[in-house]
């Protein structure tokens, strides 16, 4: 099997660096900016894996909507000092041990890869908006409609949770 393309290696390495930066950054705004660059790099990976529609959706939903939400809340709440206290004794070493086991197991399973069907010959226009849309509106039309209900419920829930607590707190 041929080695991974040079573009994939570069983008993948950058995605790793931004992910580590996001978890390690002291400043929450830095974390959010690392996150948006990570999601942008993932969109490029989707392009390389012939999913152009998902790449566009990734940029719009993650790098657009989710990013704005996160930055808005960070700005609203201010940059609280991050405590480094350990609530349960030995929590941190135990976590790191569990993470090492998890990472080793996942990477071992992933390194086997998946058997490529049809020798990697993809149909014309694979993953294009037309093909994804056709699949969404024929075979997957019921889940598609259910997802719209999920979005509606989430919207109502977010408004209720963020709004009613304040009114209840202001009354007494």
């Amino acid at each position: 099997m041929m080695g991974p393309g040079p573009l994939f290696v570069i983008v993948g390495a950058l995605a790793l660096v931004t992910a580590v930066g996001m978890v390690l950054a002291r400043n929450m705004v830095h974390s959010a900016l690392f996150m948006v660059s990570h999601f942008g790099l993932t969109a490029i990976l989707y392009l390389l894996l012939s999913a152009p529609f998902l790449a566009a959706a990734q940029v719009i939903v993650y790098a657009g909507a989710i990013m704005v939400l996160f930055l808005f809340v960070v700005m609203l709440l201010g940059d609280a000092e991050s405590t480094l206290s350990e609530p349960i004794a030995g929590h941190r070493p135990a976590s790191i041990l569990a993470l090492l086991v998890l990472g080793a197991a996942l990477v071992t399973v992933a390194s086997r890869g998946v058997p490529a069907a049809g020798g990697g010959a993809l149909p014309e226009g694979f993953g294009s908006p037309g093909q994804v849309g056709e699949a969404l509106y024929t075979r997957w039309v019921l889940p598609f409609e259910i997802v719209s209900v999920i979005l509606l419920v989430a919207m109502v829930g977010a408004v209720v949770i963020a709004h009613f607590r304040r009114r209840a707190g202001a009354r007494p």
Partner: protein
Amino acid sequence: MIPLAVQIPANGPLMLAAVLFTIGAAGVLLRRNIIIVLMSVELMLNAVNLTLVTVSHALASLDGQIFVFFSLTVAAAEVAVGLALVVALHRSLGSTDVDAASSLRD
């Protein structure tokens, strides 16, 4: 469409996604700021999406990509509700530390 796409063997992206998932789990377990924890959950979801797109590419089947579309929607809903909870938590406790919310009563 993109010539580079054919050259990528599946295990490279799969291993990358596995490492990204572990990094996200590390953020959830080790960071104490609830906003960073939410971001790390997003990172884990994103790693799973990358796995699905990779397998979809390797098997030449669109189903994986459709599933990523749904998981993208659920992630957006999760962030909206999660951040609303963070705002409510910050109002009642004045803190965004995950250990501040350790009591069931007011």
